């Protein structure tokens, strides 16, 4: 299993791996927001947690269609499915690799982009904590979407359509925690709910994803 993780990480950072694309997308979305809503710093400060969460979610979404499609095209998925690893483990490792190459950089970059949006000082800690708790759920749910659409020629748009409704609870609790944190309110409830969702999907979603992948490999 370590071998698979190392291979995926290595592939992501080699040429053509697309590492950093999500990060660049996150930066651009954040930079475009003030152009769209105006430069008033109090308005930006108010919407900053939500914008940063939405930006992170979209960057995550952007990189999902490469998650399994590349392994599908070159036949690696067939070979992995006949290897001694259970497919549930393969899927979990893939989601973990996706989180390390996409989710974690987003979490680390979010505070820097928060400066651009005039995020209140109290907000940084809870923004990072909520993203740290929420982005694993985004990766795992996204892997399910990627497994659903893996065999399709133009699956990218469909993938977004399928995954976005599944992201609703994570986004609500995550952005709510970041928002309450920025306003100096209590964040325990949304953070606990967010952690619950993450733990639940990490534990259960790989089974659904593996089932879907098996069907698609038939």
């Amino acid at each position, binding site marked *: 299993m370590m071998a698979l993780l190392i291979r995926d990480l290595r592939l992501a950072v080699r040429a053509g791996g697309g590492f950093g694309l999500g990060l660049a997308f996150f930066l651009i979305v954040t930079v475009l927001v003030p152009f769209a809503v105006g430069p008033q710093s109090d308005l930006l400060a108010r919407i900053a947690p939500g914008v940063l969460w939405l930006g992170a979610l979209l960057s995550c979404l952007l990189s999902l269609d490469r998650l399994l499609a590349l392994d599908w095209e070159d036949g690696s998925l067939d070979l992995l499915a006949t*290897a001694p690893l259970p497919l549930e483990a393969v899927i979990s490792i893939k989601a973990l690799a996706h989180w390390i190459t996409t989710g974690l950089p987003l979490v680390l970059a979010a505070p820097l982009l928060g400066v651009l949006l005039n995020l209140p000082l109290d907000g940084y800690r809870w923004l990072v904590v909520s993203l740290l708790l929420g982005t694993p759920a985004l990766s795992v749910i996204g892997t399910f979407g990627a497994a659903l659409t893996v065999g399709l020629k133009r699956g990218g748009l469909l993938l977004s359509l399928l995954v976005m409704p599944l992201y609703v609870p994570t986004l609500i609790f995550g952005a709510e925690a970041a928002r309450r944190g920025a306003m100096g309110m209590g964040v325990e409830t949304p953070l606990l709910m967010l952690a619950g969702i993450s733990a639940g999907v990490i534990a259960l979603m790989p089974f659904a994803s593996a089932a879907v992948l098996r069907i698609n490999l038939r």
Partner: protein
Amino acid sequence: MSLNVSDLCIARGGLPVLEGVSFILRPGGALILRGPNGIGKTTLLRSIAGLQPPLGGEVRGGEDRIAYSAHSDGLKSALTVTENLQFWASVFGTRSIEAALAAYDLTALHDRPAGTLSAGQKRRLGLSRMLVTGRPIWVMDEPTVSLDQASVALFAAAVQAHLASGGLALIATHIDLGLAADVLDLGPYRAKPLALDDFDGAFL
């Protein structure tokens, strides 16, 4: 332990294509599958490898003992030859890839990225993967595509050595590999079309 395929019936796209396929493959034995394009060789091999559930019949003795090689080799062009092979070796829990590289004459290429290899070299790398799986049953789908004569000889030698050490091989190919292998022509197993009015679960 032998591979036992009995009365296997398989479907492609919801339609039965082959039925009643039965054979027994004993240690040290090889079986060559023949048949016209579209008869279902690939589907049969995928069913035996466990990727696809058959409509009926069963495959015994295959669980966790089959190494499957498909049309595409599952190579990552950004990784080197060694990295590609080492990955599969660790997945299958074997240690050394030196013998596999040597068997397919890849040692000189070991630090080249797989993306820079020629089609035949890629195929050789894909075939060398079978050697690092450490599994007794090789199920191979058209393994000699894009191989030149010398490479085919390398492949035949690798299969020969595998059989000599008690392995089994099930190969779909049109080329004569010079192996002492049985040949199974799939033509007679073509599934008969169902009656037009048999309008039940399968809609046909």
